[in-house]
């Protein structure tokens, strides 16, 4: 089968449909994932086709959802959990950090917990409080979790499939403001690189722009603008932030000599810090300028009328690029 155009949302739905069909041990669970198909419709139609036993509406309790998913995984199931919005993952954070992340190491590998926790995340959709956050750094610091975020429909499909297949717990951040982005998805092209490999999505020679999830498109757009001004920016889609594919990033930076990291999350203690610190340590003599970070401010996600100021857009990315060249 050739590639089909679909939205990122449909790609996710298709991936879930395919994993449910492939493996009877796979389950989908969360608030409103059944009859309603989730508030974003990522799970649309799944309960109808796979039954209430496989696609479970749960009580409204995130700790309960994650905790029971762990129990189901201990029994041999592979739950794919939906957290309704980024800001509502925290009641489940204890189960994620103290149990899901640690139980495999606690048991010296005797226990594996193949659980995927899907979290629609990020802002830019004009939502009320708690519906626009980017808490990925709070998971990446926790050993035992894999943390990833696709930026386009094809990756959404394949990375979710890989996440479900992985025997490790995966926190799967879905860029909700890109749900309706369209792209080609070839559901038969199973020779995909693993989710933890970054991808150069636009080659360039003058500066490396690293991003993941919703900011990849922003960075591509920024690179297009910069190209008009004669600067060739290389854009790296990290795809995964635990682990980070530093090989790809270092290789790029050694060529370009400059790096800007962009994410929606606040800069302070964000993913950009880890990437800047690591790359600087390992590419010290290749850098013509310090690694610069672009992200939100050290302030809670603001009311939506301020989100354009809060979130880094093309202009702020280009401003950082300018500053990197000014060095």
């Amino acid at each position: 089968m050739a590639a089909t155009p679909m939205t990122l949302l449909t790609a996710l739905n298709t991936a879930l449909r395919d994993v449910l069909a492939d493996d009877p041990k796979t389950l989908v669970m969360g608030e409103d994932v059944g009859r309603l198909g989730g508030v974003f419709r990522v799970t649309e139609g799944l309960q109808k086709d796979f039954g209430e036993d496989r696609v479970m509406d749960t009580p409204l309790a995130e700790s309960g959802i994650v905790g029971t998913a762990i129990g189901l995984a201990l029994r041999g199931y592979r739950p794919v959990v939906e957290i309704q919005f980024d800001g509502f993952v925290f009641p489940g954070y204890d189960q994620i950090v103290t149990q899901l992340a640690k139980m495999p190491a606690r048991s010296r590998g005797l226990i594996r917990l193949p659980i995927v926790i899907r979290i629609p995340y990020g802002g830019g959709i004009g939502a009320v409080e708690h519906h626009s956050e980017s808490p990925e750094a709070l998971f990446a610091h926790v050993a035992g979790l894999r943390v990833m975020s696709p930026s386009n429909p094809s990756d959404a499909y394949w990375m979710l499939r890989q996440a479900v297949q992985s025997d490790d717990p995966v926190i799967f951040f879905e860029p909700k403001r890109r749900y309706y982005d369209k792209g080609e998805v070839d559901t038969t092209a199973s020779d995909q690189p693993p989710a933890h490999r970054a991808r150069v999505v636009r080659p360039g020679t003058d500066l490396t722009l690293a991003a993941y999830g919703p900011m990849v498109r922003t960075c591509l757009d920024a690179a297009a603008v910069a190209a008009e001004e004669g600067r060739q920016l290389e854009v790296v889609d990290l795809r995964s932030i635990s682990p980070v594919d530093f090989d790809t990033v270092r290789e790029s930076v050694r060529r370009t000599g400059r790096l800007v990291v962009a994410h929606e999350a606040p800069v302070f203690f964000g993913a950009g810090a880890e990437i800047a610190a690591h790359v600087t340590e390992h590419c010290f003599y290749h850098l013509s300028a310090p690694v610069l970070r672009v992200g939100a401010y050290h302030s809670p996600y603001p009311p939506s009328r301020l989100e354009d100021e809060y979130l880094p857009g093309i202009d702020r990315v280009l401003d950082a690029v300018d500053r990197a060249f000014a060095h």
Partner: protein
Amino acid sequence: MSGDGIRLLTPEGERVTHPEYGLDAGPEELRALYRDMALARRFDAEGVTLQRQGELGLWPSLLGQEAAQVGSVRALADGDHVFPSYREHAVALCRGLDPLVLLRLFRGVDHGAWDPDAHGFHLYTLVIGSQTLHATGYACGVAKDGSDAAVLAYFGDGATSQGDVAEAFNFAAVYDAPVVFFCQNNQWAISEPNARQTRVPLHQRAQGYGFPGVRVDGNDVLAVLAVTRAALEHVRSGRGPFLVEAFTYRMGAHTTSDDPTRYRDSAEVESWRAKDPLLRLERLLRREELADDAFFAEVTAEGEALAVRVREGVRSMPSPAPEELFDHVYAEAHGEVDRERAEFAAYQASFAEEG
């Protein structure tokens, strides 16, 4: 205690008695309750409209829950303190909150930044169940102060599944905190019916924590008022918390983003329409000739005036200044915020220069 719960007014508008709960309400009070509900309903409808017109980002309609909200809030004394969830618009109005202040949240101008002390009405809380613990702590503080104020905490049927609500029940019970837990069981948590949240009627939950819980007909404003009054008296007397389950129905969508036809039958909605909280009080007022057409016309006019004020106010609502991003995060200086504020100012200024 099963079925629709304690009732003092039938859907047909007839007053009935209850062995334990009674209400001695004169014509004026009855009319005032009707007015509260009617204004809330009109305000709510305007919220839906404004959202449809793109003036609001979101609106969670209270349609159908007017009696549960008005009956409960009108049981309070001035010094009492309310901890709402996010759908308590009628409660907000009755506490005296300016509706335009409330609408700032839904327009995305702020996060609902009213002064909780000004009206004894805490901020809306969107993380399900969280506020029940704040209410409990506040109530512990009230008791420490030796005050005889009481606290009223609102939450939904879905919220009862959250660990925080269970912890709030237990802390309140252990500390004898003067808090009434008021659950508006509107039958739905977005698309999930009660059966997905609980095995038993929700008021029973209280028994397991050692305090009383009752179910009241949440569409009967008189019963809600009577039961909440009794509950408040109970908690004020130092006997610890009390749970009221107001059995009601969410007539509209969960919020304007929701499409309830995907998950529930219109027959169910229709059956609840027959229990409409306003209609039954109107029937009583008319049957007993406690209000005439002029009264209802007046209330309607008042509602329209409110709607106009709200509409105009929302449309002309100023957006916040971008610098606000940095202004309220901390009470005292914080190096990171200061640095970012300065960078932001310089960045903004660079456009001014360019432009």
